């Protein structure tokens, strides 16, 4: 055991003196996620809020033939801007979010009691324009409905005759589950933190040591190589665990910086959430430490290892990206898949559903099984003759 602790403390001490490792493990890794998260959320929230409250102005063609409609729009905070020539092009070139075109026969058809056409010219592929489009559409439609009801009443009919079916929304989403939808990329930040926290250490402890030619003298000591590896892995895990703890702590403060109450969502990133995230992530810490060491052991130099690891870094994105593009129903086996299981678990925690014992068990069992395989593979590689020889 003394060889293990000797290696462990030496690696920890040596890397505490390395600014690059420290900055990555203690600042970049843990804070990158929360800071990006807070910034993104604020931009999103403010934009959405601004759009739904603020008066907007929409070019209206033929405003003079429908003064009542224009007045209704104005009442809902939509000002009629002067008409523009070639509205289709204007929308395509993003000079306008939406243009309203009222047909010239409007007044004539209106007085005859006929249906008239009002065109909404917009581009549905432009997501930032969707809020004004929705607002204009709902104002126009409700204006139409209201006028229709008036006409029916004028003819002595009840307005309900025209709308025999009424739709009533009964949304089962809780305010917390709505927020989970927006935060589905959060698990990736935790994985990224663990990855960045240990990355420079992993490179330094294998490829770096090889490049500096200190691996050969180290292996001359009467210590089994697996003990040396164990000490190094423990040092990597320590750094990534510290990164994760810092990151979880930083996320816990995120609701202070996001106007969650304005969105009508609940965001609980407190101690309970944090401790469960750390528990879920434990196997990943070991797994990633072993994988990073394994990959670095193949590299001949620090730079080469860095290149390989930045490719490896893409892998943890996949489950998060996949789940946000193709929302799948969680099957039991998915919890046992490392990364995917953590992803599902953390999203569930965000939704406030909690993670039942069997899911947690599967998550930990699958993760640790993969970690054992990765550690074992790294140990095999460490036994190879060529590993120590730098030249």
């Amino acid at each position, binding site marked *: 055991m*003394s*060889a293990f602790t*000797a*290696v462990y403390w*030496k690696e920890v*001490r*040596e*890397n505490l*003196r*390395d600014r690059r490792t420290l900055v990555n493990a203690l600042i970049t890794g843990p804070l990158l996620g929360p800071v990006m998260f807070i910034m993104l959320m604020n931009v999103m929230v403010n934009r959405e809020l601004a759009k739904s409250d603020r008066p907007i102005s929409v070019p209206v063609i033929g405003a003079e033939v429908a003064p009542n409609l224009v007045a209704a729009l104005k009442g809902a905070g939509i000002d009629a801007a002067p008409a523009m020539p070639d509205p289709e092009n204007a929308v395509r070139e993003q000079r306008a979010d939406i243009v309203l075109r009222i047909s010239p026969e409007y007044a004539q058809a209106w007085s005859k009691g006929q249906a008239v056409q009002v065109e909404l010219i917009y581009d549905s592929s432009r997501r930032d324009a969707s809020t004004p489009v929705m607002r204009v559409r709902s104002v126009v439609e409700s204006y139409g409905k209201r006028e229709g009801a008036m006409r029916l009443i004028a003819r002595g009919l009840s307005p309900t005759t025209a709308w025999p079916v009424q739709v009533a929304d009964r949304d089962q989403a809780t305010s917390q589950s709505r927020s989970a939808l927006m935060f589905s990329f959060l698990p990736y930040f935790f994985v990224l933190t663990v990855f960045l926290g240990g990355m420079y250490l992993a490179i330094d402890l294998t490829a770096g*040591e090889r490049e*500096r*030619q*200190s*691996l*050969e*003298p*180290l*292996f*001359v*000591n*009467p*210590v*089994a190589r697996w003990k040396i590896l164990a000490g190094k892995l423990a040092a990597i895990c320590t750094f990534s665990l510290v990164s994760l703890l810092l990151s979880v702590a930083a996320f816990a403060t995120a609701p202070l910086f996001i106007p969650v109450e304005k969105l009508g969502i609940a965001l609980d990133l407190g101690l309970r959430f944090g401790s469960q995230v750390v528990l879920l992530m434990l196997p990943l810490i070991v797994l990633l430490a072993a994988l990073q060491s394994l990959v670095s052991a193949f590299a001949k130099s620090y730079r080469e290892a860095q290149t390989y690891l930045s490719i490896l870094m893409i892998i943890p994105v996949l489950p998060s990206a996949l789940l946000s593009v193709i929302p799948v129903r969680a099957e039991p086996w998915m919890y046992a898949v490392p990364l995917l299981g953590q992803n599902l678990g953390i999203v569930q925690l965000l939704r406030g559903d909690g993670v039942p014992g069997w899911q947690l068990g599967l998550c930990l069992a699958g993760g640790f099984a993969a970690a054992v395989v990765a550690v074992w593979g790294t140990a095999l590689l460490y036994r190879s*003759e060529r590993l*120590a*020889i*730098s*030249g």
Partner: protein
Amino acid sequence: MIEVKDLHKAFGEVRAVNGVSFTARDGEITGLLGPNGAGKTTTLRMLYTLMTPDAGQVLVDGVDAAVDPLAVRRQLGVLPDARGLYKRLTATENIDYFGRLHDMEPGLLRQRREALIDALEMRDIATRRTEGFSQGQRVKTAIARALVHDPRNVLLDEPTNGLDVMATRAMRHFMRQLKDEGRCVLFSSHIMQEVAALCDRIVVIAHGRVVADESPSALLAQTGETSLEDAFVKIIGTDEGLAA
């Protein structure tokens, strides 16, 4: 004592070591002389169990390296070809790290470390971080950490490589001291003069084979030359890859 019996090692097609046998005795300095690429480093790497020989046997104080490599490494102090130090640690911390890996008791470790720091005249650099050390300072630190566990057998791979005149003299003096302490000292070199000045026994290696294994005087007698330099060239057949 180190006994090497008929070692073989090939890397693909290249037979780096092709039947090397010799014995290095306690209280003697044994020199492994040969041109660059003769197989000296590979031979030493098999001695300190970093590489496994394809065939042959290595005995260190009677322990077979193939049977108990950890015990063999415990008996050896090695200055390998690769001398990488941990540059964010001080010289003392570098030495202590290896002492701990040898599971040394802290009091003994401190005592040995201080003795080596004095013997190698590196007191002035002991508490400095090794980043920016000169070649000589680096070799001193590497030797101190290799010998901190007081090994009976000392292997030095080209110990004077890259050292200036003063540092080389100090190194030779230190090696004689190790010999006087009754240790078995085995070192490799491609510098004829150095081997001639230090060795009780010279093992000449060329093309992965031992071509001579004699005391310096016996080498002279065998070749009929008056200088060791001429004797070496005659034995190896060429002076390519050697330095005076």
